[in-house]
């Protein structure tokens, strides 16, 4: 028998349904595994074992009652889940990886979290993240770096590095993440797991602590496309509390019954296979595209000509939005307040002490890009080039159904490998930023390993609201391969 902590979501739900395990047994097994291995990985900022055990017990009782009454069961009843520490969980410390929110306990749940609680999940704890989700390695967390379960000297990627490491290390069957510029897909790739960045507006941002509001999306990381789709579908949908939430019905699952990829047109953009990409990454991605072809997909060479501009566009728009969003941390209503000599001094000192180096850097950059005299040249121009990037995708999706591309130029790099060079770190995001700027969905999944046995991922990007097509393609791929079933030896 598989160890119960290695269960997929599907297997865990089946085991709960048949009574093979109880939610309490499953939750205890995860907590024991976390206790044993967490010191080597540091995937969590806050663990909530008491609440998790109480929740699991309540879920077991509820299952017994509902079964007795012959009533329908919530779809995820008793399923343990990890949640990235930028999503509000009521009365559980939510830090965003920042000292400025060290003691913040939100008085409400994020909509994404609330919907999954309604579906029956048991929250194990809050996973590590780059401060305010700004980073690509989890090294920017004020609570210490997360280690990659495949090689603990390496980063797990970021910013949802804690969630990706937790899934890879079997600390949870799935975890919530967020993706503003690649923060679900890149750590999924580095840790060898599957992760969705949904269409902008598909999953409510209410209760997601804001970074770049026109780019932020709430996603899921798990062990298979099928698992990730199950949880994604339960989070998706209209929410009146998010002004950019879109009123679109949730699709039927794309994984169900998908047998082949006949009729699917897969675009391969030449701009994503550039000089500087690790040869093994390119090789694995091209092999994966051949697997899609072998399953019946038609492969089409395409061009997304403005791809290289995504980096400068993103690093103007995201910091600009961040500088406005993070103005709320002023020491008045929540968060850190430093000793001070008056109101302005309180703002300056609290923010100067509470924010870490990358957050300050982006606030400074964004403030500059929005300041009088520079707005048009920087922010305005970036918003126009963003239109060109979006138009690239619209043009491509006239002739293909999905776009297949690498996620990051390399596999997981060493902790400290980028030193204090912010531009080198920003270049990690070069292949993930376009989907956020265009608002399209992206699904990351493992497609093999490099010579050092580090996972390589590939992403499929699709038309807005066509997550279903991405899940279908990845599911067919995962039926034909077993990279997603491999787990690190820790």
């Amino acid at each position, binding site marked *: 028998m598989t160890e119960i902590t290695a269960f997929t979501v599907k297997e865990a739900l089946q085991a709960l349904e048949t009574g093979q395990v109880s939610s309490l047994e499953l939750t205890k097994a995860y907590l024991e595994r976390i206790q044993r291995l967490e010191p080597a990985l540091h995937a969590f900022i806050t663990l909530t074992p008491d609440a998790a055990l109480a929740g699991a017990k309540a879920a077991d009782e509820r299952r017994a009652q509902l079964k007795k009454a012959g009533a329908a069961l919530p779809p995820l009843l008793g399923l343990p889940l990890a949640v990235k520490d930028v999503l509000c969980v009521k009365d559980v410390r939510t830090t965003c990886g920042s000292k400025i929110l060290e003691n913040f306990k939100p*008085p409400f749940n994020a909509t994404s979290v609330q919907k999954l609680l309604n579906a029956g999940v048991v929250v194990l704890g809050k996973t590590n993240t780059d401060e305010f989700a700004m980073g690509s390695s989890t090294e920017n967390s004020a609570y210490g770096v997360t280690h990659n379960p495949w090689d603990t000297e390496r980063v797990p990627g970021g910013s949802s590095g804690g969630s990706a490491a937790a899934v890879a290390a079997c600390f949870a069957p799935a975890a919530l993440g967020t993706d503003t510029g690649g923060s679900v897909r890149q750590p999924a790739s580095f840790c060898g797991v599957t992760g969705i960045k949904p269409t902008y507006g598909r999953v409510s941002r209410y209760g997601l602590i804001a970074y770049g509001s026109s780019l932020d999306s709430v996603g899921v990381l798990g062990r298979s496309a099928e698992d990730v789709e199950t949880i994604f579908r339960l989070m998706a949908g209209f929410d009146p509390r998010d002004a950019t939430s879109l009123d679109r019905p949730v699709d039927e699952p794309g994984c169900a019954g998908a047998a082949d990829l006949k009729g699917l047109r897969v675009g391969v953009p030449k701009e994503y296979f550039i000089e500087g990409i690790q040869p093994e990454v390119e090789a694995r991605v091209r092999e994966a595209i051949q697997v899609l072809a072998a399953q019946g997909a038609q492969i089409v060479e395409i061009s997304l000509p403005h791809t290289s501009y995504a980096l400068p566009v993103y690093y103007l728009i995201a910091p600009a939005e961040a500088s406005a969003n993070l103005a709320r941390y002023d020491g008045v209503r929540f968060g850190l307040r430093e000793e001070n000599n008056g109101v302005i001094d309180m703002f300056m000192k609290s*923010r100067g002490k509470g924010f870490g180096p990358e957050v300050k850097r982006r606030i*400074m950059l964004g*403030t500059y890009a929005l*300041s009088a005299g520079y707005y048009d040249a920087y922010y305005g121009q970036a918003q126009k080039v963003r239109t060109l990037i*979006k138009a690239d995708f619209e043009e491509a999706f006239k002739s293909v159904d999905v776009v297949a591309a690498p996620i990051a130029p390399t596999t997981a790099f060493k902790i400290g490998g980028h030193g204090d060079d912010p531009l080198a770190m920003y270049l990690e995001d070069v292949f993930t930023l376009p989907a956020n700027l265009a608002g399209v969905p992206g699904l990351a999944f493992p497609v093999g390993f490099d010579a050092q046995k580090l996972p390589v991922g590939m992403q499929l990007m699709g038309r807005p609201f066509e997550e279903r097509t991405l899940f279908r393609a990845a599911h067919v791929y995962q039926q034909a391969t077993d990279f997603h079933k491999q787990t690190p030896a820790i």
Partner: protein
Amino acid sequence: MTLTLKEVEHIALLARLELTPEEKERYQQQLSAILDHVAQLQALDTSSIQTTSSVLPPQARLREDEVREGLTTSQALQNAPAAEKDQFRVPPVFD
């Protein structure tokens, strides 16, 4: 382009961030390098391009004007660094 130390100090004041002398120097260097990198956008002719203010068509909508539950006073104040008489307590704004 190179930012001057004075410009860095001005941005930090606008952003209400107290920076140490070392931070000012580091950000002067790093922000200058980043601004050099993003300057490549200036080469694109965008005179006929609309800005993207929203990636998907925004849906303006109205909601029913009904009373709904909000946060209680104690919930709203539960994270306050200082509170008094059901209010956030802050340093004096005027002398």
